[in-house]
């Protein structure tokens, strides 16, 4: 897949990447502004009953709410880029400490899930498209439609009920720490991983199946069949290369979804990840932590969507060589 016309693709790509970066910047502004512009004096709301004029003043000073907004925004952004996310309101520890290992945990969970879900989903999608409308296809269709309709916590609790309560194989609380080795960690996260994998696989499988059915009904496939080519050759040599672009797009989009789906699964299984931290700090209104973790989630989501767009541009020959 040589890039025969690099000159054509670069402006298209740089436009898309530029748009992604602008989006990231606007999101950072929104996250920052969100604390300012929204109604309800933050200091009094968080301090609650202990809100005397002195404590409110001290609180505002600590969050630097007394500086002018634009000055504060750039100070915040500058510190953020340097890795200083401020201190948590709840326990006064630097937010960066709280976030870094939890982010690694969330990435671990998402990564393992992706490694299981992607091959299974693509394979099932291709098979379902090839054996369209057979019993196999219909069964899979029903299974995936149900799975994507269920809220993630329903799937999670069913799995806990089956695999943790009825037959006590796996732990229902996924607690991991640095002392565990790799296999122990895998054992601990088996249930949350399975929950996420089921939902993501269902989404990806349906979209892959739709993409491949779309391609299989194209004229050139019909031509290949009419020429008498063997079925395997038609699929591997003619259909599959054309399916790469939409399938890659589907995978990247679902990876982006995974970033958000992780939040609910982490709460159900009390997994020490970034999603759990975000939800906890939202209830406690621990604003610095909410801002930092929210920004990280949003940035990951935007970057993955950007990756999806870039990959689908690069893998589509028509877009690679624009006229």
């Amino acid at each position, binding site marked *: 897949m040589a890039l025969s016309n690099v000159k054509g693709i670069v402006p298209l790509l740089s436009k898309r990447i530029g748009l992604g970066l602008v*989006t990231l910047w*606007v*999101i950072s502004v*929104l*996250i920052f502004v*969100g*604390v300012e512009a*929204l*109604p*309800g004096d*933050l200091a009094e*709301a968080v301090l609650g009953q202990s809100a005397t004029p002195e404590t409110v003043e001290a609180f505002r000073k600590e969050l630097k709410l007394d500086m002018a907004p634009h000055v504060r925004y750039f100070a915040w952004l500058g510190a953020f880029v340097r890795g200083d996310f401020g201190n948590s309101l709840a326990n006064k520890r630097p937010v960066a400490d709280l976030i870094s290992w939890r982010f690694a945990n969330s990435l671990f969970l998402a990564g393992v899930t992706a490694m299981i879900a992607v091959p299974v989903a693509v394979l099932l999608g291709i098979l379902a498209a090839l054996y*369209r*409308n057979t019993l196999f296809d219909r069964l899979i269709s029903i299974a995936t*439609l*149900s799975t*994507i*309709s*269920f*809220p*993630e*916590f*329903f799937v999670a*609790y*069913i799995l*806990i*009920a089956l695999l*943790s*309560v*009825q037959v006590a194989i796996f732990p*229902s609380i996924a607690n991991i720490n640095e002392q565990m080795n790799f296999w122990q960690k895998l054992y601990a996260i088996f249930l949350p991983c399975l929950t996420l994998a089921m939902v993501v696989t269902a989404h990806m499988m349906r979209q892959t199946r739709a993409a491949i*059915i779309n391609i299989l*009904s194209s004229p050139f496939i019909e031509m290949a069949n009419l020429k008498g080519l063997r079925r395997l050759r038609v699929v591997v040599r003619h259909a599959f290369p054309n399916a790469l672009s939409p399938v890659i797009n589907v995978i990247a989009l679902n990876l*982006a979804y995974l*970033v*958000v789906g992780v*939040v*609910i699964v982490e*709460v*159900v299984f009390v997994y020490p990840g970034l999603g759990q931290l*975000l*939800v906890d*700090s*939202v*209830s406690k*209104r621990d*604003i610095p932590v*909410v*801002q930092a973790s*929210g920004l990280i*989630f*949003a940035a990951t*989501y*935007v970057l993955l*969507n950007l990756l999806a767009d870039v990959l689908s541009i690069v893998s589509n020959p028509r877009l690679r060589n624009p006229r």
Partner: protein
Amino acid sequence: MTAVLKLLRSAPFSARLGMGMVLLTLLAALLAPVIAPYSETEVAGDVWLPASGEHLIGTDNLGRDLFSRLLYGARNTIAIAFLITGLSFVVGIIWGFLAATVGGWMDQLLSRCVDILMAFPTLIFALMVLSVVGTSIPALVIVIALLDSTRVYRLSRAVAMDIEVMEYVEAARLRGEGLWWLMRHEILPNAMPPLVAEFGLRFCFVFLFIAALSFLGLGIQPPTADWGSMVRENSGAITFGIYTPLWPAGAIAFLTVGVNLIVDWFLHIASGLQD
């Protein structure tokens, strides 16, 4: 009207099943005060009782009748989801039609803003906003309605752009009709079919979203019955082998499966695939 009936009659089994499921839930929501044996917050027995003659599916973590709370939960969540979807449609349609008819810089500005809003993961955004304004019902309604109106904006803008170039719209313009009149009397009636279909789909997503937020403890607050927070309240029972939280979670799944079956059928019709 006859076209609608003909369409309904041609529905496959799965879509009919879906319609039945949705209707059942809506009926339960409407008739909740009539058929519920106990009230929403009445403590009627011991904690986590199993199903019996007195309590159709047992009691919850505070001893309240689970069946009654399921019915009231349907009512509360569906009512709020309806309100939110309605609000998001009003906002989205107005801006979408405006962008399509006025065009020019307003269209560009609005579309860029909506693109950026849509680039944000919805759950994260809602969580962050709720952390600042608190989790009251009005805040919840406004936040989710605004976030959801972006999708409605996209659809109504696309539909309005198709309609706007028709001759009857041009004729109305030449007659001297104002912008508001055009949107209300020419564009809106012709845009109804895709918008109504989208309403059903968005309602389902909003419903799931509220359930997810309530499950995280940031949506509808107790003691108001709501399926999401009921799952959360009863989640402790699972480790004892008591499957109480599966009832409200299953109810959510029931409704969304029903809506998805209907939507799947719509998509199948719209895509025109023959198989």
